[in-house]
């Protein structure tokens, strides 16, 4: 009996189920994306109790569990807090070919950072503390790539 496996190819079944997922954006992020798509504006929300300003906006304040019900428009400029140069390809997901830079950008007027791509600069020249500004996409569809990338403030 111990030899029978030598005469066959190990069996592997392919999956047949491909589930078509969709995700409801919801009231909070719909407001953010509609402002971005329709008016080219970046909006944050602010907790009425502790005054923390969140961008992207939050469903509830992470400190007080209050509705961050005050909406504020941000100027679109900010500072690079940290970054990395991505040197491998993930073609199903990444919006850019490697190498590209993504980083944490502390937006002026906000208390949290936004994760986004930093471009229009050679990757090796990106620095922590660098001032950057948002560049909007020409054809905006209501998603995070309506901000094409951030670039150094000239």
């Amino acid at each position: 009996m111990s030899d029978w496996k030598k005469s066959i190819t190990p069996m592997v079944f392919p999956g047949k189920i491909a589930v078509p997922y969709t995700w409801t954006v919801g009231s909070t992020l719909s407001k953010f994306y509609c402002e971005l798509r329709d008016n080219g504006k970046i909006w944050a929300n602010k907790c009425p109790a502790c005054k923390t300003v969140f961008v992207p906006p939050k469903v509830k304040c992470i400190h007080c569990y209050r509705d961050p019900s005050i909406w504020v428009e941000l100027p679109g400029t900010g500072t690079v807090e940290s970054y990395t140069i991505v040197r491998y390809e993930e073609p199903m997901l990444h919006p850019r070919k490697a190498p590209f830079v993504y980083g944490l950008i502390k937006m002026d007027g906000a208390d949290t950072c936004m994760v986004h791509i930093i471009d229009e600069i050679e990757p090796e020249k990106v620095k922590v503390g660098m001032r950057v500004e948002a560049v909007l996409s020409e054809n905006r569809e209501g998603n995070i790539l309506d901000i094409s990338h951030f670039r150094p403030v000239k």
Partner: protein
Amino acid sequence: MGKRVGIIGVGQTHHASQRLDASGVELIAEAVTRALDDAELTVKDIDAVVIGNMDHFENINYVDMWAVDGLGAVMKPVFKVTTGGTTGTTIAACAFYTVASGLFDVVLAVGWEKNSESDTQAAVATCANPVLERDFFAGAIGPLATEYSMYMKAYGATEEDAAIVAARERNNALNNPYAHVRQAVTVEDVLKSPMLSYPIKFLDMCPRSDGACAVIFAVEEKAKKLCPKPAWVHASVVRHDYTHFGDLEWTFMPTLERASAEAYKLAGITNPLKEFDVAELYLPASTCGVKWMDSLWFCEHGEAPKLVRKGVFDMDGELPVNPSGGVICTNPIGATGLIRVGEAAWQIMGRAGARQVENARLALVTGFGGCSWSDVMILGADLP
């Protein structure tokens, strides 16, 4: 023996087939906010959080991370549990264990699902063993149809017996403002609805819903201080027995029999039909509202159709079952079991509105999942 535990607050969303106004995080926040309001607490009073859902339904793992703001769990201990259909009752069991252990005083239990975000039947099929029985086992309806077929043959139960249950629960839901499906139907309507998988027809079967539920458990000393009338947990029992579809006994529900027998023993219950005032049971199809009554020790095997026909489980019967309209009216899967717990707690607390059973002092809760898993929880107005 652990500490005594009481439920002191319940919140749930208004459930629907698709809540386009709310993301998963927003559904969770809606339920949690309502539970905190119901208990007159703030998020600061919560010591730990248990959350659960079925990852396959949204294709986002890790709800304990990405929903943490809506959950109110920032910098708190969070535990995620997922056990298929029983997820909601397992969340309740875990919250109960967490408080009963004496290590946490106030624990928030949250179940949620956004079934509109995927193809529920395809996602459910991923629970079946992919190299053995997934091909024909796909979906939730087949096994339930098969087990009731066997019960019909064994005991002479009928499609009409199930239709009586379906009409009862669907009409009960008219009193529940949170229910997903609120539509008056007759037994005739159920029998004439399209056949899904013999003998289960469209109106016999649960829908798939978007929704969330949150229930707050507190240790005895705190529960007494914070709530005028807590719903005390008298027993929480879980039994799982999955092997393969063909291995199981289908004329009754062994896991439900064993779980309920153990729970009754813990709670000192000898005549469940007489002693319980209300039941919120996880009945995914109306057929289960016939067959599984045997397995809850309400009668001998095969006697359930007689009780159903006599109206024993109607709102004005000896033991009202599912005043909320139950699972066949509302089914956000990861929340479904927890809604049973929350609805039963509200019955004990006297907060069940138009669906309140007068002077409900002892309530039975069940959860169902897999093939075939059963959770049982008993809630009471008196200290256990």
